[in-house]
């Protein structure tokens, strides 16, 4: 074999740039795992936290750098385009903010830091890879990398029974769902003769659509629907979110979801999935309704936010039923703004919960407006954004989704969505009412905000407000990547 042939077969330098964020995250993750046994346990939390933060920030920068080198890599398995860059940025930014949130949480809960930070970084590798993978088998592998990390992370409050329950439930049901996805991939391969999304898209566009492709899409949607907590595959969500550590919930309700939505966008639009509109219509309507109705009666803030995340998955899915030119950017924008507000909300919940996560019931938020005005005001901003009040990212997110749906003449689905957001306002408002209009029963002080947590909250607030006042830039970027994707 001569050199010319070798360079043809082996990946070129630029192809490594196209997976640079993944490489960086893996290296930092491994470094943390190696260092963990070498440093003293108390000191390790601080040190490893800083390393993890450095890793995630480096990954954000790598994403920005990578954006200058679009193209495919590794024999057409990975593709860097504006679309993947967008989701890389969302995932890595979430990772950085979650690490900032965890920094203080680790000490308060007395959790061993090594594996924790390692797993977050490894999980982020899977999520990043999901958004740039354009080949179903690689997508499956990336999905597994991300899922297995989150299964373990859910059980990290080792001393709490609910946390173990959460982890086990998530693991069992999650593996089941992944199997569905894999089965769907196999059927898709049977129907089209390829696992490459671009090729599948071409086949499904030109030929008459084989019945097997419908089955393949349906099964893949079961698997992915589970991961984004879309009804009717949502039943695990409240229990898992309740038991898992609060920063981890902030992480797993946003980053893996963003990645899976990226996969769904590629599968539904780039691969031109048959039967898309009705599949999505039903799932979206169910998620919005069941999520909001379920949230109405919750007394536990984490469960409340879990149901709210089901509802938001529903709003997001509405965009998938729309036309690609409006639907894709709307979904991307929604992912970003949902990430900003939800990570922030869980950061507040994590801080307020205190040692052993004792304070997570809604009643305990009474009087927070007086005890800690800053914390209450921040949470209020996130909740208003979740309601969808103007000047917050949540408003434009809903706005783009619903106007995309209207442009596709989905009036019924839009009406369901709009009415649901009105119902949703009620339970978010309950939290605000608790904080500002009820007096607290105890005078237990709220721990002062640490620098790391304040930074995390500031980033989330700024992102939420930025998306609510100047959404143009982000949406334009998303529209551009949508056109690239559909070319």
């Amino acid at each position: 074999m001569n050199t010319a042939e070798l360079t043809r077969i082996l990946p070129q330098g630029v192809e490594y740039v196209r997976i640079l964020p993944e490489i960086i995250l893996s290296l930092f993750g491994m470094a943390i795992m190696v260092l963990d046994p070498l440093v003293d346990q108390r000191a390790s939390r601080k040190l490893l936290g800083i390393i993890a933060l450095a890793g995630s920030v480096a990954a954000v920068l790598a994403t920005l750098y990578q954006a200058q080198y679009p193209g495919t890599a590794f024999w057409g398995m990975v593709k860097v385009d504006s679309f993947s860059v967008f989701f890389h940025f969302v995932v890595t930014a979430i990772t950085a903010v979650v690490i900032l949130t965890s920094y203080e949480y680790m000490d308060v809960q007395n959790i061993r830091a090594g594996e924790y930070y390692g797993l977050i970084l490894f999980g982020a590798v899977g999520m990043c890879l999901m958004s740039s993978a354009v080949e179903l088998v690689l997508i499956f592998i990336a999905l597994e990398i991300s899922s297995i990390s989150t299964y373990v992370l859910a059980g990290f409050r080792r001393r709490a029974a609910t946390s173990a329950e959460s982890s086990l439930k998530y693991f069992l049901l999650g593996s089941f769902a992944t199997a569905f996805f894999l089965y769907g991939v196999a059927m898709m391969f049977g129907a089209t003769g390829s696992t490459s999304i671009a090729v599948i898209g071409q086949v499904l566009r030109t030929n008459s659509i084989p019945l097997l492709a419908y089955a393949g899409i349906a099964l893949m949607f079961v698997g992915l629907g589970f991961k984004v907590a879309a009804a009717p595959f949502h039943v695990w969500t409240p229990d898992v979110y309740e038991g898992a550590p609060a920063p981890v919930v902030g992480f797993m309700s946003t980053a893996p979801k963003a990645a899976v939505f990226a996969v769904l966008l590629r599968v539904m639009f780039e691969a031109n999935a048959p039967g898309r509109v009705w599949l999505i219509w039903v799932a979206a309507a169910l998620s919005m309704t069941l999520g909001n109705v379920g949230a109405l009666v919750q007394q536990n803030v984490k469960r409340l936010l879990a149901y709210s995340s089901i509802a938001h998955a529903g709003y997001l899915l509405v965009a998938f039923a729309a036309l690609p030119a409006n639907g894709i950017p709307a979904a991307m924008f929604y992912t970003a703004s949902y990430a900003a507000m939800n990570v922030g909300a869980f950061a507040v919940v994590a801080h307020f919960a205190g040692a052993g996560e004792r304070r997570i019931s809604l009643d305990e938020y009474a009087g927070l407006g007086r005890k800690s005005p800053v914390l209450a005001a921040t949470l209020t901003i996130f909740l208003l954004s979740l309601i969808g009040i103007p000047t917050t990212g949540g408003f434009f997110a809903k706005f783009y989704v619903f106007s995309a749906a209207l442009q596709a003449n989905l009036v019924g689905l839009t009406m369901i969505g709009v009415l649901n957001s009105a119902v949703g306002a009620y339970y978010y408002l309950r939290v605000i009412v608790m904080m500002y209009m009820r007096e607290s029963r105890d005078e237990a002080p709220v721990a002062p905000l640490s620098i790391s947590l304040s930074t995390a909250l500031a980033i989330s607030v700024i992102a939420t407000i930025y998306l609510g006042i100047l959404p143009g830039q982000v949406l334009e970027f998303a529209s551009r990547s949508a056109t690239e994707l559909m070319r």
Partner: protein
Amino acid sequence: MNMDKWSPMILSLVTFIPLAGAMLLTLLPRRDRDIRVFSLVVSLLTFVLSLHLPVHFHRALAGFQYQIDIPWIPTPNIHYHLGVDGVSMWLVVLTTFLTPLCVLISWNSIHERVKEFFILMLVLETAMIGVFVALDLFVFYFFWEATLIPMALLIGMYGHGRKVYAAVKFFMYTMIASMFMLAAILWLYAKVGTFDFVTLQSAIRAGQVDNFASAAQWLFLGFFIAFAVKVPLFPFHTWLPDAHVEAPTAGSVLLAGVLLKMGTYGMLRFNLGLFPEQARANAWWVMILALIGVIYGALVALVQPNMKKLIAYSSISHLGFVILGIFSFTQAGLDGATFVMLAHGVSTGGLFMLAGILYERRHTYEIAEFGGLATSMPVYAAFFLFVVLASVGLPLLNGFVGEFLVLSGAFQARAVYGILGATGVIWSAGYLLWMYQRVFFGKITHASNETLPDMDLRERIALVPAAIAALVMGVAPLLWLNAIDPAVHAALVPFEQLAGKVVGQ
């Protein structure tokens, strides 16, 4: 000329100075006195700046003035488009006029979480002004929703009694209703590709909107329900008495003085402006609901044992007049409706302030708790009588002009509307004067009423502007009407064409 340089900026300045003040306020240390003084300065500054609008307004012109139109967000195509015509200009001035008075009246009654209170109030002021000056439907909706949160928090945090219930009810009612408006706005955007009010209006008039004929009725209703809840029109009124009774005084003043007008202003601007044919087709049942509101509100007010609830129901009755005027589609009716909006803002604002002054002293609004107050509080009684008479519609005070015009408009539309509406005037004299008699005349029945201190200087300063405004508006209504008239006339043009079409057939 100096004015031309200012013109495009002035609306933005008036709108956002309170917000800027609120932001500065977050940085100030928690020294209550400084915070109060600062808020007063900011709100007075806003008022003085807003006076630029009527002073330099071209009164003979019908269109929007002081316009500013710059692209804000490219997709969707949202423009930062502000402008006022003769109707909205006065509503802006009403808002900026009432806010400093609210700061004064809350001086001592708010003594906990003072900083938050004034921040919320200034944010609310920005949102309210924004509603009146926005000419982009999106920006309008933006401000419309933005009024909700500070108001709900003001009620829920500083109110009394069942304040949380009242705040949540207020929020949910308005929120759910405005969702329908949002859906209608989105539909229009999906078809026309712009949120700009002027562009939309001309596109609709030129018949360039696809499927408009089949959707127009729904669009009309979408906007109408949002505004009807805000006004509130019977039977969507049930949030109002709760919100008013539990709200702090300043909250009640702004709620009755400005927020309710957002609903009637919306009907005038959007329901009439965008959907004239549907407005005409639906006018009969709107008029009936408005008349029910006028009479029902008055009858319920008559039997209220609670002073604040009485004023709240009187608002339902008075706002019924406004809708009556708007949907009469006559020049006099619309002029009168706009004038009632302004007059009601001043006089009901005054009534709520007076009720608040009494509450500060006795911590109750029950009419039965009082009696004979004229002896112990003569100045207070004089102010109260003046404002009551203004509200009742005594000639030469502000209530009379508007009611007269509305009723003459209603007569022109159909005599029975005018006759039934006129009974509302009689009722209002009944319940207000009866309340006055029970509170101020007769013997003092409760010992604690004998030693009540009369109004102090600060309270007088808060009430005197309202009283003067009520008098000037009654004596020289043309100052206001000559700006309102061209705007109203322009709004009525499509109706005259419609009427012509009907006659032609």
